[in-house]
């Protein structure tokens, strides 16, 4: 113990010295988190904490379980990252201290999570047993349990997002329903159900800071739209029959709707089982176009200013990324950032995008204006990339 102390001191000194390399952070604890983020190393149960100003890795945190399909929400002070693992693990990471603060395994099989409007509650959606559990954001103590049971049959829960007025919205894959949970009385959530929304909703997202909740359907061509300002109007179908009766292609990876691009009054949606991004007007909810793509889109994400939409694709086209110019609704750039592109995340104002290439064990950083590669970071089987700027966005 004492023998290694000088060594530890040198390490600490080194850490402090290297920390001088990023601006305004001579003391690693005296810094903001606005430019911090998390990279999921899915196969290793590990995350990296990174900063985007110099594009460097700061540290890593291990022991987080099965992180396939893991997602992250941030506390409103931007200090903590809540990592939702596939194995039901909910881990609270202190970004500044670079350590695991708390961890609970809350279900057998989880799919995602969200943080409430007031930042005090964490909701986790589960496949097994299907439902939503609500935790205290500080202690991770269980506060409420919302089993997704319809007529005694459990459902997998997908598309969980926070919505205005201290609520959460989510969809039931097996039952084909959308539920809104009001958690303003934290231990007594009040649930409002919308049944018959269509077959196999597989994910959901919000548009216009929480005005609309939309669930994508796997079992039908179309999406289910709920106007949260007028929930009494019920769920409407949009893009009904967008496949025009053609057989969809087999889907090797489900599209992800979190972060769906909304730009210039248009919503850019990955078509299920088709090599297309569908463009819908967010006022009339009519289709205004479709853009042919290199494969089946997984993520279609808008640069924060809305000028570009970046798209990645399912296996076997997952080495390609395409950039759609929103002004002309055309693909203006196709390139390969690496093998098995899993995710893209923009810096808060969008001048750079970070892209994970799982099978290259790399995260690559591109300038979105010039499309030039700026930097490469090593990461083991990286998947999701999440920046702390998400802390202040609704529906993430």
């Amino acid at each position, binding site marked *: 113990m004492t023998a290694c102390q000088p060594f530890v001191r040198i390490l600490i000194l080194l850490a402090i010295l290297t920390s001088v390399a990023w601006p305004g952070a001579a003391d690693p604890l005296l810094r903001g988190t606005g430019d911090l983020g998390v990279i999921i190393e*899915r*196969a290793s149960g590990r995350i990296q904490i990174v900063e985007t100003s110099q594009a460097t890795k700061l540290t890593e945190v291990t022991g987080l379980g*099965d*992180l*396939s*399909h893991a997602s992250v929400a941030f506390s409103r002070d931007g200090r903590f990252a809540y990592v939702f693992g*596939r*194995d039901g693990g909910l881990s609270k990471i202190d970004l500044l201290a670079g350590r695991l603060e708390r961890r609970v395994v809350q279900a*057998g*099989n989880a*799919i995602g999570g969200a943080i409430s409007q007031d930042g005090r509650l964490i909701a986790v959606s589960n*496949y*097994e047993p299907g439902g939503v559990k609500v935790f205290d954001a500080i202690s991770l103590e269980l506060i409420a349990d919302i089993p997704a049971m319809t007529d005694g049959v459990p459902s*997998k829960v*997908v598309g969980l997002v926070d919505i205005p007025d201290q609520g959460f919205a989510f969809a039931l*894959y097996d039952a084909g329903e959308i539920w809104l949970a009001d958690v303003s009385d934290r231990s007594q959530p009040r649930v409002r159900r919308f049944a018959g929304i269509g077959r*196999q909703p*597989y994910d959901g997202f919000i548009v216009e800071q929480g005005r609309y909740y939309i669930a994508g359907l*796997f*079992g039908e061509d179309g999406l289910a739209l709920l106007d949260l300002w007028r929930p009494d109007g019920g769920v409407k179908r949009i893009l009904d029959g967008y496949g025009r009766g053609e057989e969809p292609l*087999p*889907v*090797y*990876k*489900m599209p992800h709707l979190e972060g769906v691009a909304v730009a210039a009054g248009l919503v850019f949606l990955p078509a299920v089982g088709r090599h297309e991004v569908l463009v819908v007007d967010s006022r009339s909810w009519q289709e205004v176009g479709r853009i042919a793509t290199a494969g089946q889109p997984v993520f279609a994400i808008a640069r924060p200013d809305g000028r570009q939409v970046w798209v990645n694709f399912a*296996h*076997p086209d997952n080495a390609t990324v395409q950039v759609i110019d929103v002004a002309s609704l055309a693909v203006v750039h196709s390139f390969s950032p690496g093998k*098995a592109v899993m995710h893209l995340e923009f810096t808060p104002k969008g001048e750079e995008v970070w892209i994970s290439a*799982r099978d290259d064990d790399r995260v690559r950083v591109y300038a979105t204006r010039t499309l030039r590669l700026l930097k490469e970071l090593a990461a083991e*089987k990286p998947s999701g990339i999440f920046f702390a700027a998400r802390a202040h966005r609704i529906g993430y």
Partner: protein
Amino acid sequence: MWRAAIVQVITAGILAALSEPAVAASEPSGARQAQLLELLKHDCGSCHGLTMRGGLGPPLLPQALATIDDAVLIETILDGRPGTPMPPWRFQLDPADAAWLVKSLRAGVSP
């Protein structure tokens, strides 16, 4: 009647004798097995979970598959299950690959 039955037994015997070594002989090579494991973990894992504990697709753990025949599982992998998200993999996997995947799943693939 009898003759037919005897012929059947003999044919079954011949078929078994023929097919057993044939399947064993076509077991994927070591390099292929490594590829298949990667595919299983990452591409199948995106729906079934990296550790096969289930996701949008059901768990593929040994106990979950115990009551389902090899033939059904192999066919599911090669041809998918229409009407569900389970896609066909025939474009990338041959029957020997699928059989090996089922064997590995039954043995419990390590995460």
